[in-house]
């Protein structure tokens, strides 16, 4: 829900918001990150997008900019963009024309110039160990998000959760050498003065050398008062053990994400976690003195029934009683469980990209149902998200280029900072959609046909559409797909299409 903030930032910077209204004297606007994998709603505002990892491509872009400007003041934006569009990973939306069927679905997306690739593939760093990693970073004076040393231990995750976009677009898995990480930590702590080192990745407990790395970091920095933190934990006892190592005493809360309440639904979404895992994990956590545990779930997942909702309540109840049994005698604090249920938002480039989001009223009904059930459970807190926010998120996550004018209109009507609930103006958003005769349900709730051209089909993460479709089918069958780290390659396509290999350490 930050889309309008981008427009607002351009405007506050005195820059015309639409790319085609920016003449030669205005800066080039480039964008990247996960949202660049369905950038179509922003196509009107951004000159070019970069898909995938920036380490190498940014140098190529800057190199091109340098040579383009080396001439005698005859730099021309359009010429630059034409050449940039030939760099792998660069997507210049202005060079692609979208045509539509009568029903509003996409007929085709075609490059309008010769030499512009019909499909833009993401960039990926092949040699992750030797990729540039800045160790002299800006250190803000005020407290900001990620206000700590960020040590990226691995990139990618091959667990294959079918709702997860990051799990697709950051493939393949590549781990960084532990000695390299230690050297980076040394430089980063020395240059920033931070008192915390976060081991970041999509799933840090999956890093092969995580235990020796944590041990070495604690040995080296513990005495200096610099701690280690793990932002993402798997649901297993191993992760609890890691958490115990890094926070010897300060027992804050632990967060786990079973995502769904029953084994059946967890198999549908390919969350490779069993009820046994969850019980074991929470038992380990409580017996080591943690008293508060947060559990993340989603509602509105494909094939979900009220049995799955009961499963959430049931699981919370079981964990509560496990906590009461496992709690060491000296711990006086009562066991507390926080259950958070967000509404499923289908995302581009995932097996669930075709699936429409559940209708708002039906999601609200499910929220009410859960709320009522949890009201009776003492020591369990239940949180959920506003349905309207998730609905608009889904509309933009699966939106096409026509949403550009909706964004501009919404911004003009005053929609800004909508990620903050007190600034969320649902009615104005609906008004913005309506003023162009568009219906957000068409983008959010409609299930896309398997033959349909998706708004992001000309952009590729390297993972093939056929594989995503197969996973979607397996999901509906409730068949689990193994992690390719431990099982044979199942052919998602990223390695062959991008000529890369997973890199894991021993």
């Amino acid at each position, binding site marked *: 829900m930050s889309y309008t903030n981008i427009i607002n930032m351009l405007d506050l910077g005195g820059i015309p918001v639409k790319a085609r209204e920016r003449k030669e004297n205005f800066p080039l606007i480039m964008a990247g990150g996960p949202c660049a994998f369905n950038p179509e709603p922003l196509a009107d505002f951004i000159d070019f997008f970069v898909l995938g990892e920036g380490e190498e491509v940014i140098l190529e872009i800057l190199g091109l900019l340098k040579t383009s400007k080396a001439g005698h003041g005859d730099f021309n934006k359009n010429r630059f963009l034409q050449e940039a569009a030939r760099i792998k990973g660069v997507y210049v939306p202005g060079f692609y024309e979208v045509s539509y069927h009568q029903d509003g679905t996409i007929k085709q997306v075609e490059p309008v110039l010769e030499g512009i690739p019909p499909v833009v593939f993401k960039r990926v760093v092949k040699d992750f160990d030797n990729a540039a990693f800045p160790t002299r970073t800006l*250190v803000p*004076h*005020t*407290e900001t998000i990620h206000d700590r040393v960020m040590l990226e231990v691995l990139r990618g995750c091959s667990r294959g959760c079918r709702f997860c976009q990051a799990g697709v677009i950051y493939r393949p898995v590549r781990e960084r050498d532990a000695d390299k990480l230690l050297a980076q930590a040394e430089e980063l*702590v*020395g*240059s*920033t*003065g*931070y*008192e915390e080192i976060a081991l970041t990745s999509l799933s840090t407990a999956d890093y092969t050398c995580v235990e020796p790395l944590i041990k070495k970091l604690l040995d080296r920095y513990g005495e*200096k*008062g*610099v701690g280690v933190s793990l932002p993402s934990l798997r649901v297993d006892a191993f992760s609890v053990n890691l958490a115990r190592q890094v926070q010897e*005493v*300060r027992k804050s809360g632990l967060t786990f994400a079973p995502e769904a309440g029953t084994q059946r639904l967890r198999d549908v979404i390919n969350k490779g976690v069993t009820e046994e895992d969850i019980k074991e994990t929470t038992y380990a956590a409580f017996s080591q003195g943690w008293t508060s545990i947060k559990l993340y779930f989603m509602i509105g997942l494909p094939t979900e029934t009220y049995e799955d909702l009961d499963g959430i309540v049931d699981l919370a109840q079981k964990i509560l009683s496990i906590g009461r049994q496992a709690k060491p005698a000296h711990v006086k604090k009562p066991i507390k469980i926080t259950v958070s249920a967000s509404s499923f938002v289908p995302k581009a480039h995932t097996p669930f990209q075709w699936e429409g989001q559940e209708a708002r009223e039906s999601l609200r009904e499910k929220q009410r149902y859960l709320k009522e059930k949890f009201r009776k459970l003492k020591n369990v807190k239940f949180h959920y998200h506003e349905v309207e926010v998730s609905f608009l998120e889904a509309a933009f996550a699966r939106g096409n280029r026509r949403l550009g004018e909706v964004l501009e209109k919404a911004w003009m009507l005053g929609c800004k900072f909508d990620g903050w609930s007190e600034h969320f103006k649902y009615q104005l958003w609906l008004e913005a959609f309506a003023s162009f005769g568009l219906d957000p349900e068409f983008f959010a709730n409609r299930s896309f046909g398997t033959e349909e051209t998706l708004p992001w089909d000309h952009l590729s993460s390297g993972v093939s559409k056929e594989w995503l479709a197969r996973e979607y089918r397996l999901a509906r069958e409730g068949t689990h797909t193994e992690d390719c780290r431990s099982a044979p390659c199942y052919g998602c396509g990223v390695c062959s299409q991008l000529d890369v290999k997973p890199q894991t350490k021993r």
Partner: protein
Amino acid sequence: MTILRSRFEVEGSMRFLSHLDILRIVGKTLRRAEIPVAFSQGFNPHPLIAFGPPRPVGMASRAEYFDVELKEHMNPLEFQERFQEQCPGGLLIRKTGEIPRGTGALNAVINCATYLLKVEYSPLLTKEELNNRVKDIFNKEEIIIFRHSPKGTKQYDIRPGVWQLSASPLENGAVVEMEIMTGSSGNVKPGEVADSLGIRDYKITEMVRTGLFTRLPEGERIVPL
């Protein structure tokens, strides 16, 4: 164990940082400078650093203080150099000295602060008019001000906490200097004193904390370092 006390200045845009921001900056700077800071014993060790009374956001200062306890002895001059080398601009250590163990904590001993405010207003007031307003303040038995907080509005008498005050005319307004009570046993805010001068619609263009002291009952001021 060595305890080093330092006085530092806050100037330029750094004055818009909060007290807590400054705390964090000093912590990071000590780590970057690899100063051997001692840690508290116990279950949740924290670095032994202590600051004086918080500086209001937006106010520059010539006299902020912090104490650091060290694991091993360190020459104060060396500390000052190493710290300053790693410190962001706008935060300047002016003096560092060793203090004997058992010296009272900054927050406990500091009870007095001096401030300089430049204010703009019109119509202008003469030197004599300003002097009279200052005299009026000292002639009063009590000066009741209202402090608003989310919990409600409280009355507070600032008169006992105003020890010295002067105001002299400038081209567009006046410069106001004051010595007032600060700290946990009673706190007067410089803006409240400026308000009591009864100047309408004045605008503060500059505000500086010029000193922090231990004020003895007879009025003698002792600098913490």
